[in-house]
């Protein structure tokens, strides 16, 4: 019996300068209606953590194009020219992270790890300023966990307890982001009585609020 809120109540959960993780991969699996509402609310100076910069008119790309993003942490920005422009003009900080490292950093943030060792990025500018740890004479980069104030997810099926499933490739970063923020809001394509307990992607304990896609 999780609380179902209206899209218009989103304003009670967002504020200027906050950090937000947004699920989705090239905007597939992004809670698009919530992105629209964020644009309408025009909260500013956001730190956005997302796989990519979306498109100018899709996904977190909308927030970027509307100059609401102070810092973007992502693995790819190539399909949103506005992101590249704001970055090169110094109007948006952009921290580019290998996609697997980003997923693992978010997981570490949710799983209480102090960091992890990965060979990804060794010998590249990704290792700049990071601690190199040698184990059995092999070098690794020590990558640190990432957490945020809020996660905005797009659930395909959410049950009344808050258990959430993400279908097909809409899943991507959604489940791991659910674990790594202080508050989690899921936009639900469909709300059902109960999801099969053997097949829950994100247990209800991670979900704080549900917004129905079609109200």
């Amino acid at each position, binding site marked *: 019996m999780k609380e179902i809120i209206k899209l218009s109540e989103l304003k009670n959960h967002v504020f200027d300068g906050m950090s937000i993780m947004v699920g989705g991969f090239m905007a597939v699996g992004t809670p698009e209606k919530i992105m629209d509402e964020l644009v309408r609310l025009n909260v500013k100076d956001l730190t956005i953590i997302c796989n990519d910069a979306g498109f100018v008119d899709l996904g977190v790309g909308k927030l970027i194009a509307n100059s609401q993003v102070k810092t973007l942490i992502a*693995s*790819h920005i190539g399909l949103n020219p506005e992101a590249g422009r704001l970055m090169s003009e110094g109007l948006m900080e952009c921290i580019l992270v290998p*996609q697997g490292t980003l*997923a693992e950093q978010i997981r570490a943030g949710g799983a209480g790890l102090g960091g992890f060792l990965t060979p*990804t990025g060794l010998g*590249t500018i990704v290792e700049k300023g990071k601690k190199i740890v040698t184990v059995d004479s092999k070098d690794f980069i020590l990558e640190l966990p990432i957490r945020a104030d809020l996660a905005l997810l797009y659930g395909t099926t959410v049950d009344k307890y808050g258990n959430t499933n993400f*279908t*097909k490739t809409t899943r991507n970063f959604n489940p791991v982001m659910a674990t790594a923020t202080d508050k989690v809001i899921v936009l639900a394509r469909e709300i059902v009585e109960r999801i099969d307990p053997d097949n829950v992607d994100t247990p209800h304990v991670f979900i704080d609020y549900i917004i129905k896609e079609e109200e």
Partner: protein
Amino acid sequence: MDRQETKNFIAKRVAKELSDGDLVNLGIGLPTLVGNFLPTDVKIDLQSENGLIGLGPAPTEDNYDKDITNAGGQVVTLVEGGMYFDSALSFAIIRGGHVDVTVLGCLQVDELGSLASWIIPGKMVPGMGGAMDLVTGAKKVIIATTHTNRGKPKILKECTLPLTAKNQVNMIITEMGVMEVKEDGLHLLEYNPEYTIMEIVEATGATLIIKEPKVMELED
């Protein structure tokens, strides 16, 4: 060969490197074409790092499903036996050495097996996406690329652009030949007889070790 024929030629040769049971990740662009030339007598599983194994052909009107996409964001299909998973498991698969072959394009690649593919400082900053993880984690890394870019070599003694990964590339396949990165340097294993060895050497910015190279053949 025109540009598309050249790309298909390269993709077709890359496909010959894949073996029965291989889990393969194909990068965006030219590498994606490899999917069109998969050997039919063996089972190859294609992974897409956004969260699936069992990448199928482009959808028809009948099986179009906008929830099934590849790492380029295009709508694709899932083959029988395929399945979906999240980004954490997807990169556990990639980084844990479970991908047998990854095929990627490049801006530059060098004789030490280092790759540059994700940034031209001041000009183009798309980001590395999953490329750094793939190149570091996959068992075999094949670079599929045209041999030169506007007449300038892409295969160098040492990359000048920021790296995607250091010393991780195993093989480079172009329209001119097949090269392997070994301990002692870059070997030309096969050459395309449409070019002379001298032409290939001149189009290459790296030192090629050439010992009885075979003719590049696309059909067995």
